[in-house]
């Protein structure tokens, strides 16, 4: 599947999609990630045909589907609110796409049974959506999409209406289902953890543009710019201004090794994840130092916010080794985990 130069401008001049290019491999699990209002849902709806683009094209397989009606594109969509028809039973809901495709009644019932059994909905067929739990509703919506054997699945934040624990289960379930069926899947989410956990590749979007495309590992380890760096990660990345000076970079009272490709005196932004910034109780070389201002417990570790000469840096300590508030501590960046961005445009240097 591919989109080329896709642009969507809403009346009133809001540009939701700005000349997007994207290609998604066959059978790939692809996540569109971004803050709300970044255009990810618009992109998904344009792929589905529910919005028509003002420019560019959408191809699915060998076909250019830009001008086709949603129903002719051979895609299935799962909506954020699941859009289960409240007046139909689970069975009727799952079989609805087949009814539209004029399959005989017996075939419809048979396929619905099959898919329902596969998704663990066996006993729920005569119920109505209002009689199901959120997790069950979500699986019925998935079953309905699976039942029509599309060439692409489009998921619009299907996990966001579930509570936190159920979300983790559903996440695993969706990933397993996608692996089993090997159908190309586009998954929209604003939850970076969800995207990292599920996707083969992630596109991080902001203001109608794609800021980075890559595997979860790429996007997590080497965010291409400060926007992605800030957005990805369950604890916010430390982004600190610094300046190139002689053989190093001066940042918040410490000196870090200087990468190639930077001019002397150039302002930069340093990015270090708290997980790669262990908190030490005694002084070492190349460390930041400051006073502990807040300690937040994360379970197996704690996030320690340290006031380093006016900059707040987050570091991590293993559970049980939390420093006292106000204590002087040292933060030593792990070698190879320090990212340097040009301050001017926020792009990654090293």
């Amino acid at each position, binding site marked *: 599947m591919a989109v080329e130069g896709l642009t969507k401008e809403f009346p009133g001049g809001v540009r939701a999609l700005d000349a997007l290019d994207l290609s998604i491999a066959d059978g790939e699990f692809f996540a569109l990630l971004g803050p709300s209002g970044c255009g990810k849902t618009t992109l998904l709806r344009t792929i589905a045909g529910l919005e028509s683009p003002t420019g560019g094209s959408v191809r699915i397989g060998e076909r250019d589907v830009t001008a086709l009606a*949603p129903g002719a594109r051979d895609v299935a969509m799962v*909506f954020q609110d699941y859009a*289960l028809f409240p*007046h139909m039973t689970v069975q009727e809901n799952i079989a*609805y796409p087949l009814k539209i*495709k004029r399959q005989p009644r017996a075939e419809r019932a048979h396929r619905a049974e099959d898919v329902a059994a596969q998704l663990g909905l066996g006993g729920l067929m005569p119920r109505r959506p209002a009689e199901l739990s959120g997790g069950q509703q979500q699986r019925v919506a998935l079953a309905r999409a699976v039942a029509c054997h599309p060439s692409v699945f489009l998921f619009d934040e299907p996990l966001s209406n579930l509570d936190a624990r159920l979300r983790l289960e559903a996440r695993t379930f969706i990933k397993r289902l996608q692996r089993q069926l090997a159908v190309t899947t586009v998954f929209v989410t604003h939850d970076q953890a969800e995207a990292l956990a599920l996707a083969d590749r992630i596109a991080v979007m902001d203001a109608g543009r794609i800021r980075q495309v890559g595997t979860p590992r790429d996007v997590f380890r080497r965010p291409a710019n400060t926007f992605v760096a800030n957005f990805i990660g369950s604890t916010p990345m430390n982004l600190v201004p610094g300046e190139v000076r002689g053989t190093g970079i001066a940042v918040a009272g410490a000196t870090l090794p200087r990468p190639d490709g930077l001019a002397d005196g150039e302002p930069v932004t340093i990015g270090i994840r708290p997980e790669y910034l262990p908190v030490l109780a005694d002084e070492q070389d190349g460390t930041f130092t400051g006073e502990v201002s807040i300690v937040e417990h994360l379970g197996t570790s704690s996030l320690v916010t340290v006031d380093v000469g006016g900059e707040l840096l987050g570091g991590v300590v293993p559970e049980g080794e939390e420093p006292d508030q106000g204590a002087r501590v040292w933060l030593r960046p792990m070698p190879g985990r320090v990212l340097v961005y040009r301050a001017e445009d926020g792009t990654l240097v090293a």
Partner: protein
Amino acid sequence: MNLARAVVGRILTYVVFGLATAFFAVPLLWLVSTPFDANPGYAVHWPSTFTLHNFTTLWHNPYAPSSIENSVLLAVGTVVIVVVGAALAAYALSRIRIPGRDALLYVLLLLSSVITGTAAMVPTFLLIFQLGLIDSRFGVVLVLSGGLLPAAIFLLKDFIDAIPRSYEESARVFGASPLQILRHVVVPVARPGLATIAVWTVVQVWGTFLTPFILLSSTDKQPASVLVNTFYTEGGSPNLGLISTFSLLYSIPVVLMYLFAWSRYGFRFHGGIKS
């Protein structure tokens, strides 16, 4: 002290409720007791001499049975036009963005409620006269539908607004045509709203007097609401026995319909899908 105040408060509450209930109950009691009374009066009491004479008289009245039939015809005709028209209009108004849509709806509603049927009667009469629909039940149906549509569209649009668009979009992605979407999804989901509109329309038409009174001149075409006006004795005083009997028969269909629709769909004058 407090207890005494609570008791007095409780007693006063019940007295107020009792008076309010009586205010509404007395006419209804009169309506169910008087038809069976051989000597009808304005007082409410158990029939002094039980009789079914009033019912046989009405049955043999040349116009009474057919007037109920006329009422049914007018009601059914108007319901069909109002429900179909309002459903299509409300769906379009709810889903398609046109500039000034809300203003248009409010103006329609305002005009239709401010300019009552009475005020518009002369122009309406002239219009129907020009159309050659005087003394035709179809003409009455058109005028009544015209009067009821704005409020029906307004009520129904609110209802359809509350149906998530994702239902229709979901059906569209599966390849359903607009007509299939309407039949399979929108109408079934909006059914309580449609039932509400239908019942409300029937009740309105059933009780309407002025429009059929003015537009229908033949007695055999007049609905029950107009015919009841003719039950006078030779002396010129109202024939209470016949009026009460006819009124009772005339109310029963509406009450039954109301109960049926209520048990089947429940009434909701607002949108909202239970999900």
